[in-house]
């Protein structure tokens, strides 16, 4: 069976937030909830890099491990889903998640957080009818044979979703194409050079100008 994964190619991400918008639109999540986000490190500097993050559907998911109600569970294809009927809003998944994926509609006194919401890999969740499923969890595109809308709509195909093996193959091809002889297992040329000479922001700016 396939294991579904997201992968964001930081080299390609242009921080357009198309994935964020696509997700909101596909899943009609409540106001204030944003299942996908784009994180930018070193914003405005030559070393700036952006990456789109949502639930990474971990193999050994910390949220599942700490949930006191077993709201969270993993499907055979690796997708981590949640059962809103079981959620008590304790917030443990939020404490545990490395990616800040679980979100709550409220943050009130006496731990009144409402029911947790997070990325479903566009695979819906447990419900009696399709309408109820859409209402609670948003789209179930996986059941229709489609991939998550965020990845489908990514303008630079930075965000990839699908079977881990295929996603890894695509990424490996890209990396080889970029000039890494061994699929990026060793450092790239600039990194190697910087490691010996000591990296500085000025060097990077100079290099980019010189090499056109």
């Amino acid at each position, binding site marked *: 069976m396939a294991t579904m994964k997201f992968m964001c190619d930081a080299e390609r991400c242009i921080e357009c937030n198309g994935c964020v918008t696509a997700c909101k639109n596909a899943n009609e999540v409540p106001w204030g909830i944003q299942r996908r986000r784009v994180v930018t490190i070193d914003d405005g500097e030559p070393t700036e890099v952006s990456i789109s*993050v949502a639930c990474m559907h971990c193999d050994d998911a910390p949220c599942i491990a700490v949930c006191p109600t077993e709201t969270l569970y993993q499907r055979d294809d690796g997708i981590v889903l949640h059962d809103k009927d079981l959620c008590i809003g304790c917030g443990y998944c939020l404490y545990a998640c490395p990616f800040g994926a679980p979100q709550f509609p409220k943050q009130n006194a006496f731990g009144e957080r409402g029911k947790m919401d997070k990325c479903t890999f566009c695979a819906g969740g447990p419900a009696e009818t399709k309408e109820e499923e859409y209402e609670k969890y948003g789209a179930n595109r996986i059941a229709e044979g489609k991939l998550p809308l965020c990845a489908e709509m990514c303008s630079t195909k930075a965000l990839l979703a699908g079977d881990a093996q295929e996603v890894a193959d695509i990424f490996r091809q890209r990396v080889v194409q970029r000039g890494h002889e061994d699929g990026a297992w060793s450092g790239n040329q600039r990194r190697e050079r910087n490691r010996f000479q000591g990296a500085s922001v000025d060097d990077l700016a100079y290099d980019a100008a010189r090499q056109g």
Partner: protein
Amino acid sequence: MQTLTGMQRPLLCLAISILFALTLGSFAMAAEQDGERANGWTPQGEIATSVGPITADTWRQVRDGENFIDTRADSTYNLINQSGEYWRQVRNRWISPGGLIAVGGMLAIITVFYLIVGKKTLDSPRTGRTMLRWTAVERAMHWTLASLFIALALTGLNLLYGKFVFRPLFGDGFWAPMISGTKLIHNYLGPLFGIMLIIVLAKWLTINIPKKHDWTWFKQGGGIIGKAHPDAGFANAGEKGWYWLLASVGLLVVASGLVLDFPNFDQGRDTMQWANMVHAIGSLGLVAVALGHIYIGTLGTEGAFEAMKTGYVDETWAKQHHNLWYDEVMQKADAAPEEKAVDDGTAKAHRPN
């Protein structure tokens, strides 16, 4: 020689070029597939315009949550929140089994102790004369605090261990309302317990000041070690220990519980992870010790439960378990019989230290 060389040269050239082509071809294969090289594309060119190198410092930044922006509104979420995994490991691998060992172990010790030693009975028959030990207000306070403690302990244990028991046993139809009710009870009664605990601690502070004889009491294990009854005032050293445990660990549990219970103050996840660990370790410890307190106050000691039930204890019980208190009450009674320390116990002198 001449002809041979003349024939060898093209052969040699061919052999070298084939070798060359084989070696280079394998390197160039991947790059040439798209034919992009014709447009001036080189691997070096792409690397030159690529994002900066990911260095150890980049990962340090990610780990420490430095210098990042996030497109989510009011977000404090770093790219990777490493502490979550530490919290999960501590909670699931140490606190959960540790709490089970502490609480289960305490139950086992109490059971074994009861089966072997049995109830601590009165050494001499009751005199029938009673002494006031706990006023109605004090008893009300004790039982309010005790009820809240038991409710919080049961719901807290359910939050930590319930999913392993009740969900498989009764299914989701039972489990869903049970666990959501559990969380409601725990979160709303918690602050009440905190208030009540502070009131009780304030009320009973003066009777729990440690004295010299308390140390002897501890060394003799409250009378378990050796045959003698160690000296004890109104509160014995065991009761004082329980008081100071509640005054320290109890307040810590209340404080950490409030941190968890009121996320509306925008405290971060890291703060709540710490609060959760302190809360869990402290409260599991308190539950274990409380089992001992409950045992001693009910099954373990003859005449102890009636003190907190009726407020009065028998003279014999007082003499046996709280001899210093008994002596002082009797002295007061001798000095001022009108205060009637014994019998109806209305005297204020019922609790010198």
